[in-house]
């Protein structure tokens, strides 16, 4: 057994023969595999879940289910996945054997940006990833690598300028409509 996650009364256990899911606190389990649900590989090394959405790091990439594990879609993360964490819109996957040790997706897995020692990571063998308080923590076999997430985007002056112009226009328009209304009477 490689990994474990829980969300409410649902427990997820990643093994070397699939992903076992219990929805009753561990009393009974359903095992999901590559053959019965499309899991990327039966070696499940890392897990994250929220509601019906399950993220499974496997030796075949990152597998995501949006129906509680019935079916999975598998995504390429450039190597074997060893761990997964989800924060906001971003999916973080620790990886190895592909020359990079972290893959990050901002679009639900459709595409990933990969990170390696070139970006300051301790090694290209990633063991796990965690995100907390605006920092990304990557466990590698060459150290613990920490990155600060960019601050939330601040709207530039353009939206304010646009709103002000629109407001000014609507004032003029109202005045004109009022004038038109009074002349037609």
């Amino acid at each position, binding site marked *: 057994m490689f990994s474990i996650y829980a969300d409410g009364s649902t427990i997820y256990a990643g093994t070397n023969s699939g992903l076992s899911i219990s929805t009753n606190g561990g009393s009974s389990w359903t095992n999901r595999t590559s053959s019965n649900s499309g899991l990327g590989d039966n070696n499940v090394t890392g897990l994250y879940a929220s509601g019906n959405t399950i993220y499974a790091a496997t030796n075949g990439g990152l597998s995501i289910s949006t129906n509680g594990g019935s079916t999975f879609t598998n995504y390429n993360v450039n190597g074997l996945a060893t*761990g997964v964490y989800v924060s906001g819109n971003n999916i973080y996957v620790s990886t190895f054997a592909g020359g990079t040790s*972290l893959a990050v997706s901002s679009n639900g897995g459709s595409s990933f940006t990969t*990170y390696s020692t070139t*970006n300051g990571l301790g090694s290209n063998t990633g063991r796990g990833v965690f995100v*907390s308080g605006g920092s990304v923590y*990557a466990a590698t076999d060459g150290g613990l690598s920490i990155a600060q997430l960019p601050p939330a985007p601040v709207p530039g002056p353009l939206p*304010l300028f646009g*709103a002000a112009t*629109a407001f000014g226009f609507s004032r003029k328009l109202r005045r004109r409509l009022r004038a038109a209304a009074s002349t037609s009477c």
Partner: protein
Amino acid sequence: MASFRTALLATAASALSLAAAPAALANPLTFTNKTTTDGLGSNNVRGVYANGNTIYAATTNGLSISSNGGTSFTNYTQANNGLANNQVNGVYAIGSNIYAATSNGFSISTNGGLNWTTASTGGGGAFQGVFASGSSVYVASQGGVSISLNSGTS
């Protein structure tokens, strides 16, 4: 009419810039790497958990804890602190409880890592991972899943 066109353009532009604002990682991440020089027990880090400025690193030579956002780490071991084994495969922390899944037992500390007790979890063998939520603790081992509903007491 001219002002109408300006207004339309400006609102369209503002709508566009707002639409482009969701929390995508626009800038690439730049990492700073922490090693044994910073106090880690080993550079081979198998798992990590963080809460505020406190970082817990599961290493192959002890559990390393930083209380200053990673500037420095203190390493806790089997010999010095009673950890079940120096090979730590997973770590999780809730409140003052720290849970360490080691290759030869499941360890719990309630005083920041200074002292550890080995929980009787059943399952046995090497412990690969741990997850906790409230007082529920879930431990993955070669023997299966062990669940405690009282923070690891039983």
